[in-house]
């Protein structure tokens, strides 16, 4: 029996499950991160304390986090999605915050001069200008989440990681490849997709910066 007959159906399910994890985790993370980022940008003095603290939490390896939640929540998809969503928050939060703060002060002044209220300035001036940065954060989070969702299989929750884990454990090369290649393709294509969205919303394409 060839590989496709044996695992084809399972592989398609795994891709679907994997994508579902990524999609729901990133959506939840995005909403939380955007809200927190906007709130923090209103009070930079608090942000200077909160952001470094979160970046320390970010160094906790995903394995541990999923493991910890597993012990407390048990083997339900919510465990994986919660862990992944928490991890997805930080890059978006940071980029939202930095994006909002780097909006040219004079533009905000001008908006105020035009008689815009605080909320209007936020939604009609600051957020649109910070959008490329926010979407940049979304891209980083999405790519990471695809990568971390591989770990979900560690606690028996399926996804493409299952193929990789079983493949490594049983020394079955075909299974490793069957898990690794689709997850790689998923990460790369989502990254390209979000990049193209980012290009469409960028006002100034001449900006550049290092990996920070």
């Amino acid at each position, binding site marked *: 029996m060839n590989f496709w007959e044996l695992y084809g159906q399972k592989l398609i399910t795994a891709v679907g499950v994997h994508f579902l994890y990524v999609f729901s985790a990133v959506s939840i993370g995005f909403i939380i991160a955007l809200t927190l980022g906007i709130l923090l940008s209103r009070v930079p003095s608090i942000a200077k304390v909160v952001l470094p603290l979160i970046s*320390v939490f970010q*160094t*906790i*390896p995903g*394995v*541990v986090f999923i*493991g*910890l939640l*597993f*012990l407390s929540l048990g083997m339900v998809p919510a465990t994986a999605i919660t862990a992944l969503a928490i991890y997805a928050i930080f890059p978006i939060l940071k980029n939202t915050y930095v994006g909002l703060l780097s909006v040219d002060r004079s533009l905000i002044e001008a908006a105020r001069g035009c008689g815009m209220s605080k909320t209007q300035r936020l939604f009609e001036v600051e957020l649109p200008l910070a959008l490329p940065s926010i979407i940049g954060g979304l891209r980083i989070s999405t*790519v990471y989440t*695809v*990568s*971390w969702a*591989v*770990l979900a299989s*560690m606690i028996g929750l399926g996804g*493409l*990681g299952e193929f*990789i*884990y079983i*493949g*490594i454990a049983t020394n079955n*090369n075909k299974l*490793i*490849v069957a*898990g*690794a*290649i689709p*997850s*790689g393709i998923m*990460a*790369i294509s989502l*990254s390209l997709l979000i990049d193209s969205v980012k290009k469409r919303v960028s006002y100034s394409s001449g900006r*550049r*910066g*290092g*990996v*920070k």
Partner: protein
Amino acid sequence: MTVKIVLEHLYLVFLAVLFSTAVGLPLGILAYLYRPLRRAVLVTSEILQTIPALALLGMVMLIFGAGKLTVIIGLVLYSLLPVVHNTFLGLDTINPGIKEAARGMGLEKWDRLFSIELPLSFPMVFTGIRIATVTSVGVAVFATAVGGGGLGSIINQGIRTQNMRLMLSGTLTLMAIAVLFDIGMAFIEKKMNQRRSA
């Protein structure tokens, strides 16, 4: 016993960062000097980092077998991006006036690169190495999956036996290492930037 595992982890990270600098720095210079190769080099390093870490290690394992070599190759591929990108950006964002002046003084292309451009971009390159180091500390946790040992083995054992203490001790050690590297190297970076602007 635990010290041995921590050292093993550090050993993996050290070799990985060493090699990714040795490979990434020339690649960054290549991208800077040869325009036709630029996109290819930058995009390839980006794609490598997009691939999930465990998937990458799994695929490297197919070629090199289980063991430390696989882990180090995987980590190098994974931490190439910050080194390559920051080398390129560091070189590319040097004040054109300085490059012009060096040319005006009659320095050849390679002289300019080694005595003017690389020293000036070094702080940026170092930032790349710092990011690569901190990332490697975290990714090296997967080493245990392909037989490379390190702190991941403790964490894994903790999860498998539902031993909270073991898991926490592994995690906290790991976090401490990552944070210490980050803070220490950020400090050096700051010193360099101060000297540069002084």
